[in-house]
């Protein structure tokens, strides 16, 4: 089921479908279409979030990844 990055639940693996208007830096850091990412945790005030991608941990703001569409993998 496709959903927006904003709605990604914590701890679930999801595959990137499209990047939308996300910054170029995101795909250069490995967030390319088809990549599996996981939302690891959310900062105390709800933003930013920590995600795991390609064996690394990135911290980013939800709003900056809002264009990314993902689908959960079972």
């Amino acid at each position, binding site marked *: 089921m496709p959903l927006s990055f904003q709605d990604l639940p914590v701890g679930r693996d999801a595959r990137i479908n499209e990047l939308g208007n996300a910054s170029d830096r995101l795909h250069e850091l490995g967030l390319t279409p088809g990549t599996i990412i996981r939302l690891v945790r959310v900062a105390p005030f709800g933003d930013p979030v920590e995600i795991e991608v390609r064996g690394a941990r990135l911290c980013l*703001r939800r709003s900056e990844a809002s264009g990314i569409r993902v689908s959960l993998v079972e």
Partner: protein
Amino acid sequence: MSTTIGQKTARIALVGKPNVGKSTLFNALTGSNQKIGNYPGVTVEIAKGSYCVQGRVVECIDVPGLYSLRAMSEDESVALRVLQGGDEPVDLYVIVMDAGSMERCLFLYSQVAELGKPIIVALTMTDVAPNLDLEALAARLGVPVVPVVAHKNEGLKELQDTIERTLESPVVPDIELGFPERVRLAIQRLVEFKQAPNIHTLRLWLLREEEPPRHISDDFRAALTELREDLLGANLSGKVLDSQTRYAWAASVRKQVEPATTSPMQSRTDRIDRILTHRVWGLLIFAALMYLVFQSIYTLATPLMDGIETAMGALSDGVSPLLAGSPLVHDLVIDGVIGGVGGVLVFLPQIMILFFFIAVLEGTGYLARAAFLMDRLLGWCGLNGRAFIPLLSSYACAIPGVMAARVMPDPKARLATILVAPLMSCSARLPVYVLLIGVFIEPKYGTAVAGLTLFIMHLLGLAVAVPVAWILNRGVLKGPRLPFLLEFPRYQWPRWRDVLATMGNKAKTFVTTAGTVILAMTILIWAALYFPQSSSSDAQAAFSRLSTQQQEVTSLETFEAQYQLEQSFLGRFGRAVAPAFEPAGFDWRLTTSLVAAFPAREVVVGAMSVIFGMGEGEDSKELRTALATATRPDGTPLMNLGNALSMMVFFALCCQCLTTVATIQAETKSAKWAWFAFGYMTVLAYLFAIVTYQLFRGVA
């Protein structure tokens, strides 16, 4: 490569992703002392050093980290200029890769490999990362791969040998990244043209990321245009395709060379992060940690400080009789040199303890987590979590802090960060706080309140910075909210040798400043207070005039000393400007000390030592006692809680550092912004000092 009289030279550059260990390797190779820290973006400027083996001098360049050949921030632009040839051609690129973060390192490698330059790979973190199949890696990369653990001096010899061999017979990698057939063929065709640039640039043109320059020949342009149309038609264009292909290649290499186990480092980091970035515990621990830092600066340093004070007193007592023959030299040495410089040196322990904590925070990787925790609190005003690291650096000193703002991709966020960075309470302010807290707060309210006051003084700058940044972003800079992306480092134990080195360096800088700038300033101040000498008869006349009017007077000797101060050049100047600072509770002596500290705030304690020391006449006391007992002309105590606090607040907020102003000018390339920072901080400091004094003057 050039050859001078029998000696070969070469230039190599250490490039790679941020935080892979480039500077650690650079330091080990060249014996330099570049800053190292466990977070991305430590190095923001090029550094040079060299080593000599087998009769060849190899000049090394340490380069800021970068993620790709597209620079998004100033530090990356600096790095990119080196890769594009820069001012000085580089003979060999040493690509530094972190064995625990292969895919992003391989991504960058795949781009640099297409620049057509000789490359070798230095593989770091092999002591903590899973064992890689090095032969397979070298085969896939097409260049030599040398594992190193630079801080333990492992692999350096092999690396130098490989560098030497590669300089003699350069290897330019030729790797198959697996771009779609059509793209591959297109590149192949374009490479045929004599004027074709390196493959990386061709790819940028071909995939429509960049337009070719105007001066290329017609047939080359025609071929390029045709191929671009063709690829666009086949839906093979754009930056994402480029990244996607490279990452697919990187993933396949990683899969081949890395054992298929989960890394124990990452799970350890995860366990720590579950607590340190927890919604509740994370914030509590952060606050507690910061409080602990300042409390221990206060309490741990006190015995050491007393030791230095005693030593200075003994020195003064020992030297005094030797100079008895010449009153002028005696006063200069005792009041000016030992009083002034010694008064500053007393604070060496605090500075070293502060830097101990900063080095530990930087070495563990906690800094990036602090940015994660704080982003929301800083974000609303237009700063972002990325600003946290430059701001925290500014607690040591604003100059590296202002420079560290280079890592911020957004120019507006960077400017806002630069302009508020000097508000953070740097280590040079520490002596003033410790001095005044020690005299006016600790004796009455105890060490807990003393530590708390020190903590609040350090928070004040940050608390003021947030609304200032908000106003800047709203009114002056105007911009949208800014992107914030940060790669989390794995936790590490701080390397104690690095921590000690940092403390040692800072101590050296502090003592050097005390021995040069502060010494010169205190001698100047001393002279301006010593001359012109008022005659003893004038003073006695004034004394007898006063004693007939008032019952309570000090001894003639102290009165003479005071009289001399007031009649001196600096005394006259001080009394002329003092009315402006009267609402903040400062008399002419405090005002003079403040004004003298405008070029460099470190001067203030030295200045106060001289001014208050000389005012005591023969039996000069050390500064703390002198401050506690100093009186106004009407006999009431000069200082109390009110003006002790207002003095601290003034120091916390004022931009008393010419070097910072110069650095802001260099970084923003604008004198306007530099003086803006100076101006707004001075005004804020003045107003806040007045408010503080008016609020606290009544508190007994």
